[in-house]
């Protein structure tokens, strides 16, 4: 079953075209890794498909409906966002809310679920990300890795069809990356549909089932992750992977 389809998305900032016609098709349970050098438009792509950034042109098929991405109305955007989750590079937790508050706020305001019930859901989600002992702490009292896991629990709260991750571990100290990746791996194993922009080659290779390599606003190469890593076809992809490999060794 197809969860999400994006067709020919274009986006410019000023006279610079950042996305030059990107297509993507996501099946239920897919974990898609998007790789690419800095500035290639990965973040812009994720932001466009969740309407945090306006799109110049493109089509979206989601939840059985087709949308013209350049002409979205507020109601459609709200409806789509209720069924998607977004995890930011810098977590963006609500600073005035506890870990539990971060997870439940969307439930109580958007879904109008009773506070008590929302808190039950929140607690079980925080338990899922290994934070049942941190429910009452504020973001400023949590480590980066813990904050990002709260952010993942918050994204899960809406019971979304798909979650977008924008470099979820890039802001983390190396020793905290593992705890976030393992939560994501568990989600993937549980069948969650995810698009993950990442520089973590191991995650792309071993957890994602499809990998996309993007550069200069276009998809250079994509394929099943195993094949992508073992047998890249494009020269540019090989070069990129070699570069990332050597970086990994240095690390």
């Amino acid at each position, binding site marked *: 079953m197809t969860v999400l389809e994006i067709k020919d998305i274009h986006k410019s900032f000023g006279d610079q075209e950042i996305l030059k016609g990107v297509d993507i098709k996501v099946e239920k349970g897919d974990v898609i890794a998007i790789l690419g050098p800095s500035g290639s438009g990965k973040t812009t792509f994720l932001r466009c498909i969740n309407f945090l950034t306006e799109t110049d042109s493109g089509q979206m098929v989601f939840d059985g409906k087709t949308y013209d991405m350049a002409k979205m109305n507020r109601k459609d955007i709200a409806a789509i966002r209720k069924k998607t989750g977004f995890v*930011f590079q810098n977590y963006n937790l609500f600073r005035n809310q506890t870990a539990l508050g971060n997870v439940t706020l969307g439930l109580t305001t958007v879904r109008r679920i009773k506070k008590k019930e929302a808190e039950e859901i929140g607690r079980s989600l925080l338990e899922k990300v290994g934070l049942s002992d941190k429910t009452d702490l504020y973001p400023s009292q949590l480590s980066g890795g813990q904050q990002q896991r709260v952010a993942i629990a*918050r994204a899960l709260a809406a019971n979304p069809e798909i979650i977008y991750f924008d470099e979820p571990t890039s802001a983390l100290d190396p020793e905290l990356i593992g705890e976030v990746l393992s939560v994501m791996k568990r989600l993937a194993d549980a069948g969650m549909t995810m698009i993950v922009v990442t520089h973590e080659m191991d995650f792309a290779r071993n957890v994602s089932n499809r990998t996309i390599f993007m550069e200069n606003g276009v998809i250079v190469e994509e394929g099943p992750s195993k094949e992508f890593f073992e047998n890249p076809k494009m020269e540019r992809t090989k070069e990129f992977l070699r570069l990332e490999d050597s970086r990994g060794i240095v690390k």
Partner: protein
Amino acid sequence: MTLEEIIQLMLDSFFKILIPGLTRTIPLTILAFSFAMVIAVICSLIEYAKVPVLKEIVRFYVWIIRGTPLLVQLLIGFYGLTSIGVKIAPFTAAVLVFSINEGAYCSETMRGSLESVSYGQFEAGYCCGMNYVQIMRHVVLPQAFRTAFPALGNSLISMLKDTSLVSNITVTEMLFAAQRIAGRTYQYMAMYIEVALIYLAFSTILTKVQKWGEEKLNYYGGA
């Protein structure tokens, strides 16, 4: 007068000064500051959300108030209005002028605090499906209020002291009462020091309350 007589005078006059403090200074401060908060929240939200036309009006209002002396505003608010036939009680005029004056300053404080909340908080809210109003109410305003709280507390304390200016428009508050006694007894130094001490006591209490409030609000580290 001997020192003992002066001390006796200060003791005798204590309640004569304190009572106007409790019946005039404190109510004026509480009323005006409450209205000022309402004005400040509305005006700062208008500026923050860049509401066309209204935001120009707010800017004009803030410009006028911040650019003119409070004493002159008080004189306009009472003698000015009275002279053109507007019937207004001195105390009412004082509440009005202080609300408007304090509202302008506090709206600037609030606006600064609102703008200090990062846009990422909005984006996170939108991604949770929340709308603008929900995000403002549950995420942005509480954070802005937390940031603004110390500065608002300082404004309140300044205002309490500034209410002494309303003796100029015949409101019988503490300074007015002290002046009356001083005029009768010629003990200006003693009376002014006494009234200063009572102001000091009031503002010290407020400072304590402010500190306590800050600690209460400090739960998310402020950072």
